[in-house]
């Protein structure tokens, strides 16, 4: 398929994207509630506000393609099709969570849908997707790998090494910057000499495209073009999706560092609102849109209940999964 054909967003396709965005939004709100009730320990990093990036990009992928993402990765893994209940279960540390409770919120992984993993070390996953791309090139599978990372991650060494290697080997990789304007608390301008991250693509001999990360259609179209390019053997693309996280960096962050009004501005461009507007323009009725959300709500709360009811791992389970054979 060419980018153009690929990029035609039918009403059904957009409804499906909206469904997944709703599920991710509700999933994250549920997790947020659990944390405030101390049902989950450690740290968590939520994706509300960035749903269009994960959903738009993964919608341009096909079976056999892979992703890697960050500790803020619930949305990406769900967008790729990981089951809601086992994703919840992993965050709750249940025995049949996606990773058997060994990884937790920062490590959601589901090989069965091509989600190679969420990484807790900033930047560590970029070379992993480069390797997946190398395998695709060598084995001629035509598979594409997409790696999601933040604006802050663009300043760590692995970013540089991964993009240069993918560029010089012309690997089928999508580098997706989720630029939400902040690292943990530092605004990008305080940490980045040239905050126009998309311009870095030139250093790596690949095209760079900056997109509205809150418009799932814009994200999808840009991703589809990059995917076609990768499948055609023309190499990687750097996508910079401009977006915003509605909550703080992690549960412990009230996000006081944000200028007044910034959040409100972005809430007005909430990816769910943007997509709903598009759907209405396509002639989808309000009741259908409400039904879509209601169904998502039901699915998510069922999954949450199911996950809650599942058993904890046994202490001795900690000794498994270090080795394949020993």
């Amino acid at each position, binding site marked *: 398929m060419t980018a153009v054909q690929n990029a035609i967003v039918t009403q059904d396709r957009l409804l499906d994207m909206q469904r997944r965005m709703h599920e991710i939004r509700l999933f994250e709100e549920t997790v947020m509630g659990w944390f405030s009730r101390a049902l989950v320990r450690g740290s968590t990093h939520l994706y509300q506000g960035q749903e269009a990036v994960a959903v738009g990009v993964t919608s341009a992928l096909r079976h056999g393609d892979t992703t890697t993402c960050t500790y803020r990765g619930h949305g990406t893994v769900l967008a790729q099709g990981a089951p809601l209940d086992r994703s919840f279960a992993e965050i709750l540390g249940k025995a049949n969570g996606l990773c058997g409770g060994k990884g937790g919120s920062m490590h959601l992984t589901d090989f069965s849908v091509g989600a190679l993993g969420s990484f807790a070390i900033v930047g560590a996953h970029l070379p992993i997707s480069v390797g997946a791309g190398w395998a695709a090139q060598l084995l001629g599978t035509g598979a594409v790998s997409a790696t999601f990372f933040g604006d802050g991650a663009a300043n760590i060494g692995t970013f540089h090494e991964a993009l240069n290697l993918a560029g010089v080997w012309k690997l089928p990789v999508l580098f997706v910057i989720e630029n939400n304007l902040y690292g943990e608390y530092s605004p990008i301008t305080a940490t980045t000499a040239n905050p126009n991250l998309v311009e870095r693509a030139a250093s790596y001999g690949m095209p760079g495209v900056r997109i509205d990360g809150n418009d799932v259609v814009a994200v999808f179209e840009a991703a589809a073009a990059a995917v076609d390019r990768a499948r055609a053997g023309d190499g990687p693309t750097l996508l910079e999706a401009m977006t915003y996280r509605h909550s703080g960096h992690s549960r412990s962050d009230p996000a006081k560092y944000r200028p007044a009004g910034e959040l409100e501005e972005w809430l007005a461009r909430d990816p769910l609102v943007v997509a709903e507007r598009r759907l209405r323009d396509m002639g989808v009725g309000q009741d259908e849109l409400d039904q879509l959300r209601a169904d998502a709500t039901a699915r998510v709360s069922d999954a949450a209940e199911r996950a809650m009811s599942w058993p904890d791992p*046994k202490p001795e389970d900690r000794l498994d999964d270090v080795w394949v054979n020993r």
Partner: protein
Amino acid sequence: MTATISAPAMVELNYRKVIARALADELATDPMVVFLGEDVGAAGGAFKSTEGLKERFGDRVRDTPISEQAIVGTAVGAALMGLRPVAEIMFADFAGVCFDQLVNTLAKYRYTSGGQARVPVTVRMANGAGAGFGPQHSQPAENWFLNIPGLKIVVPATVADMYGLLRSAIRDDDPVLVFEHKNLFAIKGRVPAEPDDAFLVPIGVADVVRGGDDVTIVATQQMRHRALEAADQLASQGVTAEVIDPRTLVPFDLDTVVTSLRKTSRLVVVQEGPPDGGWGATLIASISSRYFELLDAPPTLVASDPTPVPYATPMEDAWLPDAARITAAVSQLIRY
């Protein structure tokens, strides 16, 4: 302790807050002290353990990009020019990202330059398991550096030691790695209301936390507290355990352990983290090879499992040695 003689006014702080206090006292005392790291300034640190420093010390406290290699290397370069930098690596696990700068540049600079370089860099890292942070945010990373000559390593377990050792680390003319245990952030303790050098804790000096005659238990950070719990349980069984907190792993205060062994003849080392290649095995090897005749029973290592740190509570709790395991190990030695 002279400090108690001069009886200065004391304040109660927790382990988290005393970090900012120690940094502030050194920044105030020595204009050459500077501090850099990710979100340490405007945001007051990911663990809120550096709040107020940026406001008070301005450009001497700097937020950096997410670039651990640059953070450590920049600290080293600044040290060569006469500054006394403190670098924060948010979680000790991230030491992996800048390991080369720590072990090949920082640790070896003085040696490689034939003594020309002085590199008074302090690297602070949040350490250890028990808080549900998962496999890549929970490692007791102090054991990664034992085989690298050139790095001093301190592992404070109390508010007073955190205060006194961090200040001593910053004043030390050699590189010092300071491991701040995440699971101890909430414990409370007392430090002088005003900066007072009497409360500096010397690097390389162990602390005999509790006296005893039957067995010597050596433990650091959260294991020190669990060892004390175990000592209480043992006391009720008529066994008196001497509990020693080395506080510094490099250089290691072997004498204090040996002195205790002359009394107890029995050694139990409690180490958070996998058994191989750790300070616990190193201590047992030193004692076994150099003080073999002191031992009436097998020196015992109580350590974590040889696995990464699991996320889910039941698994992580089991991974960490607890008082029950320590007590059991001691009882077995007593019966030996």
